[in-house]
């Protein structure tokens, strides 16, 4: 029973954390983009505009609800939830701080420790596609249809290099152990030799590109190109339903950064983040937070500097460049694991 209670508390904490993260990520992005454009960004609501996300949320809730006459009502209403729920749920297997031990009680800072963690990430990330596809299709609008078709093709195409690179990372967990692991918690607890870090970082740019495409971020934001499709799949959505799609996109950015921080940069690990001490979790979460914020900065930096690419280039880049590259990386990793590790 206590496991259930603990899980409920952890789930609530995680959802609150992610939503706050989302709210301040929008602020962070607007501020940063403003700086890239030599503007000031939001600075009216509260000190430094810090209350802006809250004002936006209140506004979204009090908007009139419009359900256009030509849409597929049920799917149209359910679709935003379908895209938000996977975004919230995917974070469950990511450890955000080292364990806290108080007497005989151990508090772990992740919602679930399952032995197929990475597979779970890949699976839930695929489910997230449904919300966008169904939202665009049920809108019964030409722009929305094109947007959702593009999303479908883009997200499933980039899942391929994503999966291949994940497989390569799983391969590296074989080194120095009896067998590999899919659990993010175990991956973090396992020491890696220095050359393995270098080899992993070689895959980081590829992985980052697939994460950009998976979360529909610029320069891969073709599902919502405003100059050709107005807003793509979400053109018929307004108010809170639009906000939920927005939330899903931003939370998937946070999740993407968290995954990359965990796989490539040691997650909560850092100086003074010692498991088992009273200050360990605080310092560990601090490191994790810093790494995630730094990666989010790169997301926004890319958005501010790279122009959007054409749709055929997007798919060809995935199938003709990224996929062969990740297959090559996978094969080399396998050779390294068998002959060196």
């Amino acid at each position, binding site marked *: 029973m206590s496991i259930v209670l603990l899980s409920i508390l952890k789930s609530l904490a995680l959802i609150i954390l992610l939503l706050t993260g989302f709210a301040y990520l929008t602020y962070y992005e607007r501020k940063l983009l403003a700086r890239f454009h030599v503007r000031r960004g939001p600075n009216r609501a509260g000190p430094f505009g810090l209350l802006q996300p809250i004002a936006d949320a209140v506004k979204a809730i009090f908007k009139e609800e419009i359900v256009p006459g030509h849409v597929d009502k049920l799917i149209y209403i359910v679709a935003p939830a379908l895209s938000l729920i996977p975004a919230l749920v995917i974070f469950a297997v990511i450890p955000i701080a080292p364990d806290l031990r108080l007497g005989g009680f151990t508090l772990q800072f992740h919602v679930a420790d399952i032995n197929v963690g990475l597979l779970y990430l890949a699976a839930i990330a695929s489910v997230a596609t449904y919300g966008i596809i169904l939202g665009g299709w049920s809108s*019964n609008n030409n722009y929305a249809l094109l947007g959702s078709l593009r999303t479908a093709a883009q997200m499933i195409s980039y899942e391929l290099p994503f999966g291949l690179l994940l497989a390569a990372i799983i391969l590296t967990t074989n080194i120095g152990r009896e067998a590999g692991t899919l659990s993010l918690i175990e991956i973090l607890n396992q020491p890696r030799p220095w050359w393995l870090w270098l080899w992993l970082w070689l895959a980081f740019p590829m992985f980052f590109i697939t994460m950009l495409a998976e979360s529909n971020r610029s320069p891969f934001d073709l599902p919502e190109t405003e100059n050709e499709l107005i807003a793509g799949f979400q053109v018929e959505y307004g108010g809170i339903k639009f906000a939920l799609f927005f939330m899903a996109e931003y939370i998937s950015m946070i999740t993407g950064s968290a995954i990359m921080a965990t796989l490539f940069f040691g997650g909560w690990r850092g100086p003074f983040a010692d498991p088992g001490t009273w200050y360990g979790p605080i310092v560990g979460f601090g490191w994790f937070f810093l790494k995630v914020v730094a990666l989010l900065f790169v997301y926004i930096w890319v958005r501010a500097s790279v122009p959007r690419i054409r749709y055929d280039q997007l798919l060809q880049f995935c199938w003709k460049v990224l996929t062969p590259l990740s297959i090559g990386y996978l094969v080399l990793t396998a050779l390294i694991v068998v002959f060196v590790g």
Partner: protein
Amino acid sequence: MTSADYLPILILILIAAPFAGIAILLPSVLGPKNPNRMKQEAIESGMIPFADARRRFPVQYYMVAVLFIIFDIEVIFLFPWAVSLNQLKIFGLIEMGVFLGILLIGYLYVWKKGAFEWE
């Protein structure tokens, strides 16, 4: 490892789902309600909509989906192999080499056929 490990995920879903549901239903309680005909129309940048979206679309999207299914299943086969490569050693390497080789032929065939081209 038992199915109890997945209980927290179920709980998380059960908490996340009502949250999304409430968020969707809230504006219909709190927001103003004055619908009119113009608000109900499809958005086409101010033009009068001339057709709905239940229509044909380029077959390329379908091609991508079919290719995805083939190659994504390949990736799923890679996962258990990747976990146990330390036990399989060279045998696993050759085994997966054959599997990947066959798929690679298919991949090159698809490439030559121009499935990745986009008009």
